[in-house]
């Protein structure tokens, strides 16, 4: 079962990171679980194609981001089934800091949120983020810069600045 072994290894190595990414994009850990499991289900379904991809983890991230931003249309059976059965909720309540960040991230437009999450969670260079988001480097640089400023303003307790960007989805 070479395919299964390589998939399992990939899953073990990447799924926790992917869950953090899904959490940052959706702002809800239970939804992130659904999205990430769905993404890996699709990866297994097309495993040979995924392994042939230049960056299999990038393939997963793209799928997670698509599912996160358009999840109600794209999620197929997983969520309905889990919901019906009684969803395995995350263990315990979210931490206060995580709630603050996810609330702040929700106020960023989706492409900006994605760029910031890729930078902070995967430490990707701007050029790699640009390639993954299929956007010019200059655009990504701008999104990162602005996104960080917005987040810093929201997160800083003494800040009096109001973010200009509201919950805009693209």
């Amino acid at each position: 079962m070479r395919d299964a072994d390589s998939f399992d290894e990939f899953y073990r190595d990447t799924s926790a990171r992917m869950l953090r990414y899904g959490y940052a994009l959706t702002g809800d850990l239970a939804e992130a679980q659904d999205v990430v499991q769905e993404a890996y289900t699709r990866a297994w379904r097309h495993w040979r194609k995924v392994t042939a991809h230049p960056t299999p983890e990038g393939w997963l991230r793209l799928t997670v981001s698509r599912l996160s931003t358009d999840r109600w249309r794209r999620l197929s059976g997983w969520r309905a089934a889990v919901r019906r059965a009684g969803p395995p909720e995350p263990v315990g309540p979210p931490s206060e800091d995580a709630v603050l960040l996810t609330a702040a991230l929700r106020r960023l437009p989706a492409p900006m949120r994605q760029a910031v999450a890729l930078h902070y969670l995967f430490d990707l260079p701007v050029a790699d983020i640009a390639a993954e988001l299929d956007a010019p480097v200059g655009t990504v640089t701008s999104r990162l810069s602005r996104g960080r400023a917005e987040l810093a303003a929201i997160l800083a307790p003494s800040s009096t600045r109001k973010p200009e960007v509201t919950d805009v989805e693209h």
Partner: protein
Amino acid sequence: MSNTESDPAVERAFSALSTDAERGLLLSGPELRRQSGNRRNRGMAVTAGTAAVLVAGAIGVGFALAGNNQKTALPPVTSASPTVAPSPSVTLPSSPPTSSPSSTPPSSPPSSTPTTNAPSIPKSIPARALLTKAESRTGELTRQDEARGVPEFCSKAKFPSAGQKGVAASVMLIYRSASAPEGSIPDDVVYDTVTVFRGEGAQDYLTELRRAVQLCPEGKIGDLDAQFDNLGSLGLGDESVLIERSYAALDGEGEPMNNGSRTATYIAAVRVGDAVTLLESQGYENLASDRGEIEKLAKIAAEHLADWR
């Protein structure tokens, strides 16, 4: 502002989010693959049996905490979750079940009165009447908690024979053909349902299936527009029918490819006396079923039914 410039507050916030994500529950890799095979795709929910696995998994079998801050965050599969063994609740017992709740129809018509001249309806369907684990060629076979209902066609299709249903049981098998290379992904997901009817219910069921194709040349499988075709008799049992259902092929995202290509799956029904064995192929994920393989399985299923009934 340089893109490499770091903001300590944002750094801390993402660190907190990463830590918080450890509360998350993820399936182990083998369990996820298994669920992937079990799942009815095409926008439909998983079966009740699979959902039960998810519940069982949530309390310790299939799920694992998303881990800590190390790179390989999921616990090794050898520590927290079994590698390949599914929940006992979904493994078909090697011996025939006796009178488990799963063997009795959950929706037997409560108002139907027993007919005095009907042959006896067995209490349950034994495992030997259905396709077996060995025949799946993957070892993946799950007895369903409830027997499956009639296949989907369209709203015009009616199945009054359901009122004659005596007892039924279903298994789901992940199937790999004999010609498939070792280690390759499975070829199909197939449900086998054996139903014993009262009176003329079994004959009626076959007639209703053929009639459903006539009434529903086009219908639905989940959210997908499907076409149904009667491919005729399989030459098995007392009577039989093979039905093809096809729909626009799906891409890796589960979306229609819109390039004219189509995917086919099959319904094969064989009647032996007052009993019917019905195979419903799902295709492995978004892949098509192989007609020849379904015909082979139908032949085996018919032999099992004839041997038992």
